[in-house]
């Protein structure tokens, strides 16, 4: 009987022009957990390599790990970083075609999910995106945990196919002890015949250039969400933020899409990540994509009218209130404290 193995795909092995697989360490640890009874299967790590990157350089960075490398002939590292990631989807398919996989693991990124969906169709395998944990029933099939129902619940899901493609949400992985893995230094190199999908043409790629260093430096970040209701309420939020020393104002994607907060001040997956001493979330529901940008803040205070808003599970202080009423009471209180009049608790 052939034994199926987990395969970890490294779709972005180049960080700019340098080989850098370090970001994938959590995926490797996660893959090792798919064989809890240590049946000797070491996850395979798969990567596509442009012709001007020596295999040894990858070997050195990933010692003791079984590697499956796809040689992209006629493609240089310069070219590889200048094509849309998805142009290589069929190359990935070819690289994995002759491996008996039990699970293909990709990072939970926008490109990672798109590639996972493609591979799942081509490999006739189930697909589970945004996996945060794994366990199994009686040592049997893995049960993958992912958020469902607007992010309000965690479901444990089993694939009904022999192979399953998952994307692993590194930011929300439940941390577990590292499992010892058996070192395996096998390197397989496969020359690929099918490489770039020429239907795609990259026209431009740009990183945000606006200066938002004040958000990095701020002691207190006051972030506002769709709960603000209308643009006119923003001045109240600014007055609220001004009561804190060293504060800066930011927003959720909801607030930025509404045009209340400039897009470069959006906090979350597609925005900035901040880790201030205090993060105050006003009228923000707490979507996983927002949490990703603020969960390393030292303290989180959230104010939301809905007592069941998911943000409360990720806050040190939860205040159920209408944000307008709360801010009015706050400003009133702080100004009287600052005048030295009001008693403090």
């Amino acid at each position, binding site marked *: 009987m052939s034994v199926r193995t987990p395969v970890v795909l490294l779709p972005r092995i180049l960080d700019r022009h340098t080989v850098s697989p370090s970001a994938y360490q959590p995926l490797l640890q996660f893959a090792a957990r798919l064989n809890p009874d240590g049946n000797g299967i070491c996850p395979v790590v798969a990567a596509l390599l442009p012709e001007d990157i020596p295999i040894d350089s990858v070997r050195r960075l990933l010692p003791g790990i079984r590697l499956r490398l796809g040689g992209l002939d006629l493609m240089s590292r310069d070219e590889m970083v200048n094509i849309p990631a998805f142009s290589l989807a069929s190359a990935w398919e070819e690289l994995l075609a002759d491996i008996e996989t039990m699970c293909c693991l990709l990072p939970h*990124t926008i*490109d990672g999910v*798109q590639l*996972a*969906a*493609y591979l799942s169709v*081509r490999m006739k*395998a189930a*697909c*589970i*995106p*945004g996996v945060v944990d794994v366990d199994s*029933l009686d040592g049997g099939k893995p049960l993958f945990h992912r958020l469902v*129902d*607007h*992010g*309000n*619940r*965690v479901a*444990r*899901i*089993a694939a*009904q196919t022999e192979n399953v493609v998952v994307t692993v949400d590194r930011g929300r992985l439940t941390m577990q002890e590292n499992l010892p893995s058996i070192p395996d230094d096998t390197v397989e190199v496969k020359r690929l015949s099918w490489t770039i*999908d020429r*239907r*795609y*043409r990259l*026209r431009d*790629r*740009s*990183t*945000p250039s606006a200066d938002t260093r004040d958000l990095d430096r701020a002691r*207190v970040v006051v972030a506002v969400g769709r709960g603000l209701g209308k643009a006119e309420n923003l001045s109240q939020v600014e007055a609220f933020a001004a009561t804190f020393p060293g504060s800066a104002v930011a927003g959720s994607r909801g607030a*930025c899409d*509404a045009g209340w907060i400039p*897009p470069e001040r959006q906090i979350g*997956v*597609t*925005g900035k990540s901040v880790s201030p*001493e*205090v993060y105050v979330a006003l009228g923000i529901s707490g979507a996983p994509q927002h949490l990703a940008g603020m969960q390393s803040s030292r*303290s*989180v205070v959230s104010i939301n009218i*809905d007592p069941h*808003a*998911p943000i*409360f*599970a*990720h806050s040190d*202080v*939860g*205040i159920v209130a209408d944000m307008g009423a709360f801010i009015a*009471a*706050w400003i009133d*209180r*702080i100004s009287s404290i600052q005048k*030295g009049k*009001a*008693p*403090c608790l």
Partner: protein
Amino acid sequence: MRIRMNVCLKPIAENPCGGWRSIKDFEIRNESDRFRMNLYDAHALEAALQLKSRLSEAFVQAIGLGPFGTETVLKRAVGMGADRAVQGTVPEPLDALSIAGALAELVRRYPCDLLFFGYMAEDSQQALTGPMTAALLDWPCLSAVVSERVLQGEDGRLRVCATRELEAGVLETVECPLPAVLTIQTRAVQPRYPVLSKMLRSKDALLQIDARNMPPLSESVLKTVDIQLPQASRSTIRLEGTPEEQALALVDWLRIHHQLFMEVSG
């Protein structure tokens, strides 16, 4: 240039299990009688309608599949400006692969040059159906698109040029030939409100697919074993009372834990 655009719309149950309200009730119920358009799909429809207004000849068709709520959502789509709406019934909520299979078949029956999806469904949060349908049709797919335009390539064929928004706000502009799939991310342009007069005429634009004529559905490849509340990442103190009392309690908490507002002792 004449362009046909299909937009896939998923009905979303309003408050399917009441947020965290029904703590003991782990079942996700789908029999809510109130449905609305998925936010990402509303942006997808808006994108198609805006493209239509910029092109000389274009036809926008909405497609909705579901056991529930499709009529509400498709009526709204017609109210917003869709020329036709295709409504299909499936017996139960399906996994992305089955829905993608049915949608790919419907696209063969109701052809288009551009196939729009929302980036993801707000409830299931998978972001799979669009790229899976593209893989089944063997069409190129651009995901998480925040702006798009149609242009003519050097060979005279139509192409789509779209800007995708990726992690940390990186913007990537990619071009590919039609037919193509786009999955639409939310953006600063708010989806338009439906026009009442158009909604009232929506019956004429609604095309219902008879159950017998629905494409065969593939079996589910996923099995949900159980559903639980997610673990809290922090232990939360709730500050109760009136806003005034809550404000005072927060000042106090910030003093103790962050030495903020220490300047006046009161």
